[in-house]
């Protein structure tokens, strides 16, 4: 009786998706009985031991136990799959792929195996195969929105916003309360400068998930980009209310306050950011930006120095320090900074360098 319970629960474990939003799929009692009837006892025992090891994160033992189970029953699909998981956890990627492939060979509709295999390829940096197997998982189970969501993020990270958007739209069609999809679609719209659409999506995400500090923060950033600074600040306030340690929202609120012309407020926010995350170079640089507006040139240099100390390849900090040095009548130093900033990809610094006859220094 005990063994049977473990088997049932282990099968339950197998079919659990990696994303928390989906309901767990449980095999029916009849499916468990059918499987049991084919399994030799040794295979069942080893399998259940493997599941226990897997749950205990003892992956090496899990591999051994699933191997034992496979040896006892060579077409044991679940054992291949779970051994694949164990190999995956041990970063034995080739073995994991082989086991997932075997699983698929035994059951071509095993969407989860496709999905897990795509995960290994993602880990290996093989984008092409990641997308191939994700797509196969989606074909096998078109209604599992988690697969679609995963693929949308892969597309997004590859800057393929068009395909990412297609998947997100499909998710929203299938599950209109999927808050993540609204957030991510908002991000695509924002990157494509469709700020009104971005704001609408982020708003929807915050309505669906009132505890999403991420969505509130993104909403604030979209408002800032649009120039609605008061609304931006309000959204960042909401994000901060959800997490008092959310340094990104403090930094972004400071940025919005800067844009609004509230330099003291901006400085206070950047200080709060640094109180939470003292090694955050962006906050030092942003503080320097406010000080530039306040014409406190020496303080700008100090702040930029700190930012550069934290990140020696921080283009904006070199750029800003260059401006301060120019105003401090130190053209040689400002030229050096603009040169470095240009090297780090700040185009405007390149122009300042050329137009200020910096080549003379």
């Amino acid at each position, binding site marked *: 009786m005990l063994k049977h319970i473990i088997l049932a629960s282990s099968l339950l474990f197998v079919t659990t998706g990696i994303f928390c939003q989906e309901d767990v799929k449980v095999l029916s009692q009849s499916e468990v009985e059918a499987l049991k009837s084919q399994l030799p006892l040794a295979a069942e025992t080893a399998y259940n031991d493997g599941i226990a090891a897997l749950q205990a994160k003892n992956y090496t033992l899990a591999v051994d136990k699933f191997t034992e189970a496979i040896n006892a029953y060579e077409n044991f699909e679940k054992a291949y799959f779970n051994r694949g998981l164990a190999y995956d956890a041990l970063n034995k990627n080739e073995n994991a792929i082989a086991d997932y492939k075997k699983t698929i060979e035994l059951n071509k509709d095993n969407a989860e195996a496709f999905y897990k295999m795509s995960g290994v390829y993602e880990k290996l940096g093989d984008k092409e195969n990641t997308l191939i197997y994700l797509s196969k998982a989606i074909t096998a189970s078109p209604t599992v929105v988690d697969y679609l969501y995963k693929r949308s993020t892969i597309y997004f990270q590859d800057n393929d916003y068009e395909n990412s958007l297609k998947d997100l739209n499909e998710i929203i069609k299938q599950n209109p309360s999927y808050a993540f999809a609204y957030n991510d679609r908002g991000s695509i719209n924002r990157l494509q400068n469709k700020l009104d659409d971005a704001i609408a999506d982020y708003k929807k995400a915050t309505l669906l998930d009132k505890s999403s500090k991420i969505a509130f923060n993104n909403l604030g950033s979209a408002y800032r980009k649009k120039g609605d600074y008061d609304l931006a600040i309000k959204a960042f306030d909401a994000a901060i209310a959800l997490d008092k340690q959310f340094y*990104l929202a403090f930094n*972004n609120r400071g940025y919005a306050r800067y844009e609004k012309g509230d330099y003291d407020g901006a400085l206070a926010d950047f200080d709060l950011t640094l109180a939470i995350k003292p090694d955050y170079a962006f906050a030092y640089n*942003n503080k320097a930006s406010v000080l530039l507006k306040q014409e406190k040139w020496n303080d700008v240099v100090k702040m930029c120095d700190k930012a550069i100390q934290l990140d020696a390849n921080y283009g*904006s900090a070199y750029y800003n320090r260059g401006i301060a040095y120019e105003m401090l009548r130190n053209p040689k130093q400002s030229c050096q900074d603009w040169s470095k900033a240009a*090297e780090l990809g700040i185009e*405007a610094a390149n*122009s*300042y360098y050329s*137009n200020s006859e910096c080549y003379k220094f």
Partner: protein
Amino acid sequence: MKKIVSIFIALIFGVISFAQDTPFDKSAFKEDKDGLKEALKNLKEGDKFYLQEPFADYKNAMPFYEKAYAFNPNNADLNYKLGMCNINTNFRTRALPYFEKAYRLNPLVAPEVKYYIGQGYHLLQKWDDAIKNYNEFASKNAGQPNSDPELLKSATKKIQECKSGKLLEKKPIRVFIDNMGKNINTEYPEYCMIMNADGSEMYFTSRRNTSTGGIIDNINGGYFEDIFYSKSSGDGWAPATNVGEPINTKGHDATVALSPDGSKMLVYIDDKGDGNIYESVRKGDAWSKPKKMDAIICSPYHESSAWYSNDGKRLYFISSRPLPGSKDKMEKDKDIYYVTWNAEKQKWDNLVRLPDNINTPYDEDGLFVHPDGKTIYFSSRGHNSIGGYDIFSTELRPDGTFSDPINIGVPVNTPDDDVFFVLSASGRYGYMTSFREDGMGEKDLYKITFLGDEKPPILNSEDILLAGLGQVIAEKPAEPIVSNRRGELAILKGTIYDDKTKKPLYAKIELTDNVKGEILAEFESDPVNGRFLVSLPAGKNYGIAVKADGYLFHSENFDIPKGADYQEYNKDVYMKKIEVGEVIVLKNIFYDLAKYSLRPESKTELDRLIKLLNDNPTIKIQISGHTDSRGSDEMNKELSKNRAKEVVTYLIKAGISEGRLKYEGYGEEQLIHSDAEIAKLKTEKEREAAHQENRRTEFKIISK
């Protein structure tokens, strides 16, 4: 020092004591008869200079009046006279308290006192107070039988100047203004700085005690003018030296202009009051004796300023001659004219007066033509001047018209005279003549650093864009769009050498607009040191051919798009003799991307090659095509071969015998810059330039 303190105390005392107008007579100074006697003597001495004919000598009157003032600061007439002395000398901004006190002591001290109070405020840029006093002067004096109509007219203009000042002051330009220091300025007057296009050399006029002959001009006092020279040294200027003969003489010799490459200088010579422009030419470090410019420029009237256009084809100048075609032979206000170089007749020709949107009924002077080929800076007392001469700019449009002048703004322009402005090719540094109380004495040269539009800071933000991943992603920072309105051009400079002997070489440099296929200008290198400098205004694809007798031509290409940042290219050119084995890169041969058909912009370069082959009918050449390392080896080889073949086909069609021509495609086999070298370059721009150099068409002399 004591004197200044006592005058200051007296002024203050005068303000707070509500003193009455106190005459210099015994009734007021019963107890100090000796003092009164001395004061009266000083008044008398001062009056000698003050009332001198035909012109008052305010400078020499002032010390006597100051002594009298120390004795009696409450005399309205003396206060007025001291105001006049200050406002007509280098101490203009100190005049206001004297005029105000004179008026307080006696509102009837002089009918024009309110005018001068207005001017005192004007000079201090207190626009509203100035307008109020000018208006009061005008309303009191308008229609009065003894009122001065010129002064009334002037008050109206000055009110307008104050209004312009108020407007311009709202949007000051961002500059640093610095005295050029002791290497350049002295206690004597320095003015009218001129410089070459890259700002490496400058000349200016000074009336210092080391002027040639050390003689003082009795007419206007001070040493005779001489021209001085200085060279840029790092971030400053080397100590100035007298350029000596034959430019400097014992008389007045003053700077007017320098050609962009520094090979020609225009000099002002007084010519017994006529005032004319002379030209001197440099070979190596030696200047020729200045030669009077053509009569079309040097009229019997006054010519005071001039400047060459960047291509050397025009000469802009200032003249006070009567309007062209006018029967009136009277000298008029100074206007801007230009003449065009007639290459056929080898003289300046075709006099044109700039239109009335540039020339005003007031004086224009102090010309400077920027090497960008379109912007002309000049000083004017008209337009929206904020007082005296202000510096303006106008643009020569492609259709030949000139844009309405723009006041270059405060704080460069002041209510006083602002003249002799020059600007570096980059637009970063300007130089002007100014009298400032913190200067080194008299007029000094000042450097203006143009900071451009405010440089906005760059802030950074990050977000978690994907809700399902915790990954923090930085937003691409918003970068400002940078425009360099004062320096949209490139400067190409270097030295031309013989490739074998490495000796400097005289050569002609032909500048072509590749798109239009027309020759824009021709320059020459210095015959002594081989140096050259060419300015390349933005907006064109330039083909540059360096040609010297007995040598293969050398070609360069510079694409300077509109809105480009300022660039300076240092390029020494090594000219190759027409000998077997010599290779020349044809930098002005263009193909469409990944295609082999020749673009029309290639015509000028190909025609140059045809001329070379026709001039040297026995030489045989091989045309070689090369690509960069991107793309497959096979495709690159094929493309380069087809491109070389296309050039050969063009030459055959132009009548060159097929037997003299070979072609080959090398693809990426003979890169100038290897991939490893390119990878080490810092910026994408540099890397792309290196790939560009790898993509080339060459010709090689294979037999002679």
